[in-house]
């Protein structure tokens, strides 16, 4: 809980300070809770499979190209 009170990323140098203290803001706290709740749901299988497929297809293509070069 305490960790969530802090912003993950401090504003970049040169950007202005927040006009409101989001850390103690009820809305921001609930929004962060909602966000981390969704993050903790994990990644749906179909997305993991999609990435595997894309990765395999790319590797296959690369090896074909390399064979042609050889």
């Amino acid at each position, binding site marked *: 809980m305490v960790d969530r009170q802090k912003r993950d*990323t401090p504003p970049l140098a040169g*950007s202005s300070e*927040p006009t409101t203290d989001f850390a103690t803001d009820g809305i921001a706290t*609930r929004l962060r809770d909602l966000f981390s709740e969704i993050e903790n749901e994990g990644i749906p299988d179909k997305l993991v499979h999609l*990435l595997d497929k894309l990765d395999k297809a790319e590797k296959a293509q690369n090896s074909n190209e390399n064979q042609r070069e050889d």
Partner: protein
Amino acid sequence: MADASHDSFDFKKQLLSALPSLRAFAVSLCGQHDRADDLVQETVMKAWSKQESFELGTNIKAWLFTILRNEFYSQLRKRGREVADTDEVYSSKLSVHPNQLGQMDMQDFLAALAQIPDDQREAIVLVCASGFSYEEAAEICDCKIGTIKSRINRARNRLQELLDVDNVLEFGPDSTSAAVIKQSFAS
């Protein structure tokens, strides 16, 4: 040749590590998990096909969020604004039994988010939940920092009204149900 496969391995790994946040952003924008997952899937395919345009050493999360955001708006334009969206969120919310407070809370918040304008919603989610700076959020949304700030302020005020935060925290589930009824009338 070894370099190419090494790069793609890293890209996949970085993409995977950013996926939970990307998905949370999608759910916040869409208000629905199934549509959000479709949006993330589109984003992953787009990102993969243009991975050469990603500059190593820059923030991959910001890059992916920008792609997802563009995809979200282009789908919205294609489909036309669906008026039924908010209703869908409401009906799913009202079907949740009040004793599932955690679930209820999430649905409450998503329903409230669905009611604020798109530009305000993305601004508050990017800065207050995703941990982007005002500057990064302005870059993702292609607008000025001051615009992001005023959108966040307006979003906060509106969400505060919709959720009646103080009452919910003070009185628990009963006032949560009351808030649902109140919001239904307000919409």
